[in-house]
């Protein structure tokens, strides 16, 4: 049994218990999630893979409070969010979660910098503090020289890097990314996975739903889902260069 102290130290950022989500009713009832037990440790990057319709996006929506479970519990930073009021849930999303979507979802009429500072302004930070934070984040994603560009003047990869900077605006407990490279070519995918890898190295807690192996390979841990349940789990951060020797044809 854990002592109180070690429980405190290892308390997961994200935790679910018996998480279930159903859509429709009667004959049309679909069980999108069926009893998911999940914990994401502070600073951990978790990749979620699985065929389309396996429930991985639904899981992400429930973790970020975009949808409510039919049954079970979701906790963020040790606090239950599945029974919060709409208002409290919206507030929790603004302050504690950063979302990154496949289609970027940037505001077309705002510049890159304005897009990144928007969440901080909505969370009630001063315009000065929001601007300073956004400038710092654009630098971190390597887009300082694009700060005054509208999204339409940016490439797909640049837009997604702006969206990732925006997701970090309020120092979220967790960044939830749904197919972050789904709309990108392979060069832009590499840029985004380098950025995700640097976030991991900086200790940001991340959950990434992806079908792209290279993106999943940046994670500390990988889970595969099928039919609304977790079916396979692997820790990815303990490979040895000995294994690589086999792979490139250096023989033992």
């Amino acid at each position, binding site marked *: 049994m854990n002592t109180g102290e070690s429980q405190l130290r290892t308390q997961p950022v994200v935790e679910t218990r018996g998480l279930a989500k159903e859509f429709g009713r009667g004959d049309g009832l679909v069980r999108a999630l069926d009893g998911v037990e999940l914990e994401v440790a502070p600073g951990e990057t978790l990749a979620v893979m699985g065929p389309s319709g396996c429930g991985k996006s639904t899981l992400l929506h429930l973790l970020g409070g975009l949808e409510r479970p039919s049954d079970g519990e979701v906790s963020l930073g040790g606090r239950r969010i599945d029974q919060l009021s709409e208002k409290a849930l919206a507030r929790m999303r603004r302050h504690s979660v950063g979302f990154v979507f496949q289609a970027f979802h940037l505001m077309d009429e705002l510049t890159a910098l304005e897009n990144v500072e928007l969440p901080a302004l909505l969370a009630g930070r001063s315009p000065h503090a929001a601007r300073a934070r956004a400038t710092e984040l654009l630098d971190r994603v390597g887009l300082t020289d694009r700060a005054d560009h509208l999204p339409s003047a940016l490439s797909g990869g640049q837009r997604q890097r702006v969206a990732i900077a925006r997701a970090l605006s309020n120092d979220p407990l967790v960044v939830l990314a749904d197919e972050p490279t789904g709309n990108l070519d392979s060069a832009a995918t590499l840029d985004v996975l*380098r950025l995700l890898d640097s976030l991991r190295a900086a200790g940001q807690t991340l959950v990434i739903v992806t079908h792209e192996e290279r993106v999943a390979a940046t994670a500390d841990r990988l889970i595969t889902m099928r039919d609304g349940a977790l079916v396979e789990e*692997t*820790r990815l951060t303990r490979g040895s*260069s000995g294994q690589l020797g086999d*792979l490139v044809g*250096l023989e033992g």
Partner: protein
Amino acid sequence: MTQEPVAVSNREEPSRRYQLRVVQEVLLALLAKEPAHGYQLRAQLQLALGPLAETMNAGHVYVTLGRLEKAGLVSSERVGQADRPDRKVYQLTDVGRARVTEWLDDTSWPKPAPAEFHLKLVATAAAGLRDPVRLVDAQRHALLAELAAAQRAALAEPDGSVAALLLEGVVLRLQADMRWLEACAAFWNTRKGES
């Protein structure tokens, strides 16, 4: 082959060493332009292999050069140094040069071996031992762990690294294998629905 260790980094396991099957041919080709010392050849191999060079036995280059000399593919000459022991400078013989040409013209290629896993799935399904889709999932995770190791090593290489190109080859081959595993999962998933 020794048993595959899990969760043990190479640093903790110095006994596991690799050698390059074609190291003879590589050394001969590297000598085709001009004579060189063993340590120069070793440095060139290390640059090409990056982090993977660590897994090569340090003395392997020198042992191989000795064998090549006995076989008449290279010859050597001792060169004196002011304050250090003499060094051997190796140069290619005509026989060695012919061997290099032969190697460059050879288009044989290491073959992937999907039959083994394919038959494992067929047998598992036929005997009702396990759900073949689960076997595919486990296999995909094993390949992804390898891809993760290769990708981390590639990301750690400096810009323009020639070793990063090798690691990119590992990543792309594993991606191709995983694409096939996806097709396996889709096939056996459909079969499950039919039975």
